[in-house]
């Protein structure tokens, strides 16, 4: 694109934003006084954004890992995450723990739910790769993309069906399609006021701390794994050049299956985490979360682990700001707008390298 074309697009966008922005909640004449009158809300939304962004980031890692290795946008990934949340909910329901249970009971239930959900989503993701993508690996790119969309629909219906099995899983509640209530197991103790004893107008709860810690450790662990382990190096080699990787003696099919296993495990962990954090799960949650996570991965530079994390935080913050200051009904539109802008102006993302050398 020529420079003047970019300038024109920016100008048109600013024009559209100023005239139609207020419809989508972007009304600077309302927002600026609002922030000025209560600046602590801005900080509060920032924290909420980072906490929500942590969960998005974990899902984004799954998109980025799979894209990095087979250049497929795995549209079913968000729905695998949804199944992770359903599996966690089912296990926690089977344990019968509630907010009133003892700490030990809660910890056991959460641990078992974690292992169960991760094992389940990892298996599901590996199976999806085997059944729906492997045969299409050498077909035109569009074929596996459409296959992924198909799998996404199937998984959503699995979620809907699962949510309707209230005879087997009473915790699923009345209506198959309705959001399911996740019991409050972590508790919302304020880190600033109740633990540190600071008297500040913003709150930061143990839940926020939990998701941010888990997401950051997962990202750091993943980076170290990919950088230094034998399997991690095989993943990088396969991502950079599949034929060369085969010549090196790498079992490429196994490495790709393992990548789906990793991505699926992360989705399962995110599913449990979101249940504990937001106390709700619904069969369509994978779509919204998937959209945001995919946007984060692209924003950070798809294929880049640190980028996915950074993108997750940024999209989380954008969504929190939109919910607070713009209009929560338009939040997804704003996320989409970011996706479009990134694809137009910087398709390699914030931390992405140029794709030139990819074979």
């Amino acid at each position: 694109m020529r420079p003047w074309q970019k300038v024109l697009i920016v100008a048109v966008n600013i024009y559209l934003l100023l005239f139609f922005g207020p419809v989508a909640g972007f009304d600077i004449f309302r927002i600026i006084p609002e922030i000025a009158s209560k600046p602590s809300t801005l900080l509060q939304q920032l924290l909420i954004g980072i906490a929500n962004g942590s969960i998005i980031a974990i899902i984004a890692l799954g998109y980025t890992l799979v894209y990095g290795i087979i250049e497929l946008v795995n549209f079913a990934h968000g729905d695998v995450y949804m199944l992770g949340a359903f599996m966690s909910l089912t296990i926690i329901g089977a344990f019968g723990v509630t907010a009133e249970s003892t700490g030990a009971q809660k910890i056991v239930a959460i641990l078992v739910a974690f292992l169960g959900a991760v094992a389940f989503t990892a298996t599901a993701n590996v199976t999806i790769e085997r059944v729906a993508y492997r045969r299409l690996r050498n077909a035109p790119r569009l074929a596996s993309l459409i296959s992924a969309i198909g799998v996404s629909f199937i998984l959503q219906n699995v979620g809907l069906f699962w949510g309707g099995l209230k005879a087997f899983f009473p915790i699923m509640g009345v209506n198959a399609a309705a959001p399911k209530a996740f019991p409050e197991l972590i508790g919302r103790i304020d880190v600033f006021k109740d633990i540190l004893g600071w008297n500040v107008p913003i709150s930061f709860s143990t839940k926020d701390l939990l998701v941010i810690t888990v997401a950051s450790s997962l990202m750091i662990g993943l980076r170290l794994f990919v950088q230094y382990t034998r399997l991690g190096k095989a993943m990088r080699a396969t991502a950079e050049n599949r034929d060369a990787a085969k010549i090196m003696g790498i079992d490429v099919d196994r490495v790709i299956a393992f990548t789906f296993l990793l991505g699926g495990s992360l989705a399962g962990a995110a599913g449990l985490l979101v249940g504990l954090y937001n106390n709700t799960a619904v069969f369509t949650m994978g779509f919204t979360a998937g959209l945001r996570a995919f946007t984060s991965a692209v924003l950070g530079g798809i294929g880049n682990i640190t980028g996915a994390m950074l993108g997750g935080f940024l999209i989380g913050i954008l969504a929190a700001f939109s919910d607070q200051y713009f209009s929560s009904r338009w939040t997804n539109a704003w996320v989409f707008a970011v996706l479009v802008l990134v694809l137009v102006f910087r398709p390699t993302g914030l931390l992405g390298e140029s794709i030139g050398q990819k074979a």
Partner: protein
Amino acid sequence: MLELKDVHTYYGNIHALKGISLKVEKGEIVTLIGSNGAGKTTTLRTIQGLLRPRSGSIVLEGEELTKIPPHLITERGVSQSPEGRLIFPRMTVLENLEMGAFSRKDKDGIKRDLERVCIVFPRLKERVKQKGGTLSGGEQQMLAMGRALMANPRVLLLDEPSMGLAPILVEQIFQIIQELNKQGTTILLVEQNARMALSIAHRGYVLQTGHIRLQGDAKRLHDDEEVRKTYLGEE
């Protein structure tokens, strides 16, 4: 040691190898020459298992290779410096070399081979920390060869190692190939530079549109009238 018998390889409907039979004995340099599109690269990719022949057999020291997956073919002792080099651009030179030894378990042997590669290609040694993609074309060619050597292969397949190199470097690369062979590596060498290839090889095959057209002693091929005309550009 390595023997291909009546190998037929297809790309979809395109019949690229139409019954290739060739042999590489232990300790030999065998060269495969032929014009563009003759099927040289296809032959090497078929041996490595990247392409599956529709019929025919490929035997390495008594073991049939057409039935086992590519990563096991590497483990059995076949490695190559492929056409287009295919180095890992975002990995460092050292990581690229380590990947070459991926299917080996003998730590001491790997260390010894790494030292050997550094002696053979001192340029690589100076650049171990550099990303593969930032090397010059000639250096990438050396890296591709070094990486293939790291597998300590029984048969080393080289696909146009002189491609895109300055004349001085070409000479150097051929010396290195000869040196490696003297140290005991068996080599199947694909080349456009037929004159050079025939001057260092023991035997040669001339490939034409998927068939073996001529074969024999390298010196004899070098003096063959048809080869001189077609491949060495002499009148």
